[in-house]
C-alpha cells in the first residue's frame, strides 16, 4: 500500500493485463457512474489513461465504520478496486496492518512525501466538547484533522457524520460534534453524505479527480451533483403513485402490497438528495423504497432530528396536537379577558349616554 512508485492509471491497468476493450468497458462503466453522457467516454478514456497516481490518507473520527464497510465490502476486485488499486492508500487505521506509532509514522511520511497533493478522506464527526472524547494515539481528532488537512489538496468528508455531524451531532449533541466543513475552511471539502454513503460515489469523485484533475461540480451542501443532483422522490419508481394520490397507509395494507407511495408512512424522499433510486444497493439488488420502507433522508443534514421517521414529511416536528390544545385553553382564558374588557367599555359608554333632544342637534362651535 505504501508503494509510492509513480505512473499513470493506464500503466497500472496494462500492467494488470487489461486489454483496450477492457479499458473501454471500464471507461463506459465509469462514465455511466459519473452520469456523463456516452459521448464523453473517449475523453474519459484518454484522460484516465494518463491519470497520475494520487496519495490518499483516510482518517476516522466519531464514526461506526459503516462507511468503510460500505466502501470495502464485497467490492473486490471491482470497478472501485481498479481505482483503489491505482491510488495509494497510505493511511487507513481500520484497514492497515500497522498500528500505533508505526501507523502514525506512515501518515506523517505520506504527508511529507506528497505535501499539497494528497487527498484526505475523513469519516466520522469531530467532537469539540472535550478533546478527550475521541483520540488516536493520544492525539485529539481536531488536532489530527487540522494537521492532516493542512497539506491536503482536497478533503472528502465521507458519510453524514463527516459531512454534517451525523448521528453524534443528534440532539442534544453530547460531544459537541461538528462536521469537517466546520473545521476545514481553507480547502475544498467534498461531502459524500449518506449513512452510509453509496460506495460508487467516492469512486466517482476519485475518478473525476483522476480524469480532470479537478473536483466535480458540487451542490449547496458541497456534494457531487452527479449523485446528489436529484431527489429520491424525483427518481423514485413509486412517484407515479404519489402523483395519482395512491398511498400505503400502513406497512401491511393493500397499498403497501401494491407498491404504492410511502409518503404517508414517513418517506423523506422529497427532501432527500441521493442516487439510491438508480444506483441501488447490494450490487444493484434493491434500495429502501423498493424493499417497502420509506427513505429516512440519511444523506440530508440533521436527518436524525427531523421529526419521526414514520411521520409524513408535512407533519411538524413537535406535538402539534398538544400545542393546539394548550393554545385553545389559553385562547379561551385570554378571550374571556378580552370579552370582559369590551363589555366594560360598552357598559361605560352606555352609562355615559346623555339623552339626545332636539335642542342638542347643533354642534358646539
Amino acid at each position, binding site marked *: 500500500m505504501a508503494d509510492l512508485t509513480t505512473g499513470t492509471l493506464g500503466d497500472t491497468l496494462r500492467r494488470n493485463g487489461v486489454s483496450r476493450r477492457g479499458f473501454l468497458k471500464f471507461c463506459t462503466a465509469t462514465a455511466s457512474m459519473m452520469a456523463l453522457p456516452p459521448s464523453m467516454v473517449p475523453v474519459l478514456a484518454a484522460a484516465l489513461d494518463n491519470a497520475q497516481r494520487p496519495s490518499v490518507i483516510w482518517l476516522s473520527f466519531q464514526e461506526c465504520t459503516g462507511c468503510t464497510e460500505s466502501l470495502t465490502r464485497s467490492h473486490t476486485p471491482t470497478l472501485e478496486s481498479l481505482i483503489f488499486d491505482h491510488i495509494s492508500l497510505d493511511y487507513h487505521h481500520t484497514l492497515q496492518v500497522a498500528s500505533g506509532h508505526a501507523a502514525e509514522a506512515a501518515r506523517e511520511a505520506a504527508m511529507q512525501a506528497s505535501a499539497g497533493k494528497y487527498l484526505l478522506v475523513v469519516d466520522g464527526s469531530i467532537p469539540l466538547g472535550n478533546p478527550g472524547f475521541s483520540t488516536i494515539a493520544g492525539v485529539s481528532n481536531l488536532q489530527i484533522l487540522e494537521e492532516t488537512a493542512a497539506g491536503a489538496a482536497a478533503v472528502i468528508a465521507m458519510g453524514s457524520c463527516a459531512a454534517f455531524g451525523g448521528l453524534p451531532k443528534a440532539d442534544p449533541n453530547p460531544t459537541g460534534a461538528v462536521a469537517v466543513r466546520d473545521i476545514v475552511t481553507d480547502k475544498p471539502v467534498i461531502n459524500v453524505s449518506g449513512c452510509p454513503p453509496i460506495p460508487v460515489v467516492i469512486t466517482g469523485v476519485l475518478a473525476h479527480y483522476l480524469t480532470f484533475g479537478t473536483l466535480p461540480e458540487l451542490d449547496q451542501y458541497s456534494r457531487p451533483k452527479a449523485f446528489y443532483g436529484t431527489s429520491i422522490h424525483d427518481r423514485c419508481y413509486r412517484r407515479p403513485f404519489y402523483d395519482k394520490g395512491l398511498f400505503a397507509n400502513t406497512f401491511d395494507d393493500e397499498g403497501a402490497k401494491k407498491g404504492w407511495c410511502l409518503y404517508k408512512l414517513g418517506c423523506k424522499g422529497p427532501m432527500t438528495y441521493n442516487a439510491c433510486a438508480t444506483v441501488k444497493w447490494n450490487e444493484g439488488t434493491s434500495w429502501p423504497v423498493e424493499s417497502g420502507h420509506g427513505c429516512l433522508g440519511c444523506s440530508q443534514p440533521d436527518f436524525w432530528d427531523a421529526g419521526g421517521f414514520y411521520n409524513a414529511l408535512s407533519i411538524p416536528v413537535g406535538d402539534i396536537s398538544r400545542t393546539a390544545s394548550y393554545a385553545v385553553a389559553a385562547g379561551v382564558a385570554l378571550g374571556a379577558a378580552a370579552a370582559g374588557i369590551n363589555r366594560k*367599555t360598552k357598559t361605560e359608554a352606555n352609562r355615559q349616554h346623555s339623552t339626545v333632544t332636539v335642542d342638542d342637534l*347643533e354642534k*358646539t362651535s
Partner: protein
Amino acid sequence: MSKATLERGLNAFREQVDAPVAAFFSSCVSCGICAEACLFYTETGDPKYTPIRKLEPLRRVWEQEYTLVGKLKKVVGLAAPVTDELLQEWQELLYDSCTLCGRCSMVCPVGNDIAYMVRRAREGMVASGNSPKDVQAAAERAVRIGSPMGIKYKALAAQVKHIEADSGLTIPIDVEGADYMPLLSSMEVINFPEYIESLARIFTHAGLSWTLCSEAFEATNTGIQIGSSDIARELVQRIVDGAEKLKVKYVIAPECGHAYTSIRWEGPDLIGKPFPFKVLHILELLDELRASGRIKTENPSHERMTFHDPCSIGRKGGVIDAPRRLMQMVNSNFVEMQDHGKWNWCCGGGGGVSANTEAEALRLKVFKRKKNQIEETGADKLVTACANCRLVIEEGLEEYRVELPIEGLTELVARHLVEDK
C-alpha cells in the same frame, strides 16, 4: 342646554358597536361589490359613495375601542383618530348619499348588513352635531309641533271634514275600543288626502271598526331618519300612548316606508317593551281582507301598470307578495320592473334624503336609475305604497321630463271596490 360634541358622538359610536357590527367590520375584505348595489355609486361612478366606506368613522371606533390590535395601534399612535373634520366630511356620505335602502346589505358576499350599520353610525353623527340642518329642523318640528312638516291636528281635522263632506263617508276620530287605528304621514294629510278617503272607503266596505287618533295620527318618525333613538323613542311613545288610550287592537302603518320601520320594527325596542297591540302595514291589512273575502273588487283596469317597492316596506319590511296579489286583483296588465321585490332600486329619497335640500342635486341625478327602470317596463302608470317615494318619483320624473301618472296602491284598491255591498 346641552350641545352636540365630538365626545358625545364618540360615545354614541361606542354604544352602537354590537356583535353584528363587529362581525361585519371583521369580515369586510374591501371587495367593493357593495358599490354596485348602490345607486349613488352606479349613477355617479364616484367611488367615494361605496357603501362600506361610508362607515369609516364607526369602523375606526370599533377597531380602536373593541379590538386588541386597534387598541395597540392607538397606544403607539398608529391609529387614525375620529375627528370633527372626518365627521364633517362623512356627513354627506352618511346622509346625503344613503337612503338606508339596504340593497348593499343584500349583495355583500360576506353578509355585511351595511344599512344596519349606517343607521347605527347616524347615532354618532347626531350626537356629534354632524347631521343635516334640514333634517334637524324637521326633527325639531316633529317633536315640538307634532309633525315634521309642521302640520297640527287642526289641519287633519279640516281635511277630514272636507272628505266627509265630499264623499259622504264617516271618518271616526278618537273612538275608544275601535279595532283599527290607522296612522298617517303628514304628506298624506297635505299632498295625498285621497289616501284618507280610501281608508274610509275600505274600512266602511269591509265593515271594520276603526278610528283615527287626534293625539297620534302622525306616523313618520324623523328620529329614525336622522338616526337618534332618543328622539325616535319620544315620537313612537306618542303613538303607543294614543293606541293604548283608545285600546285599539291594531295600529295600521300608512303608505310610508320609514314609518313602517319605526313603528313595526324599531318601536318596541325603542320603548323597551312589546306593544299591547299588533302593527300591520296597510297593504298587509288589505291583503288579509282580500284573502278573507272582506273586500271585493270589480272591473280590473287593463292599463299597463308597474309597482315600485318602497325599500322599507319590501326589502326591509317583508311586505313583498301582498302588493303583487293586490295588483293582480285590480289590474289585468301588471308588469314587473326588472329588479323588483327585494332587489328593487330605491327612488333615491328615503332615509331622510328627500327632507335634505343639500342632497337635492345628487338625489335628482341618481334618480336616473329609477327612471330607466320605470321606462323599461313601458307602463302607463306607476303604483307604489309610500307617499315619500311617490313625491320623490314625481319630482324626479318631472326633472327628466317624463309624463307618468302615479297612484298609491291603497287608493287603487279603494277605487275598484264593489260599490253596493
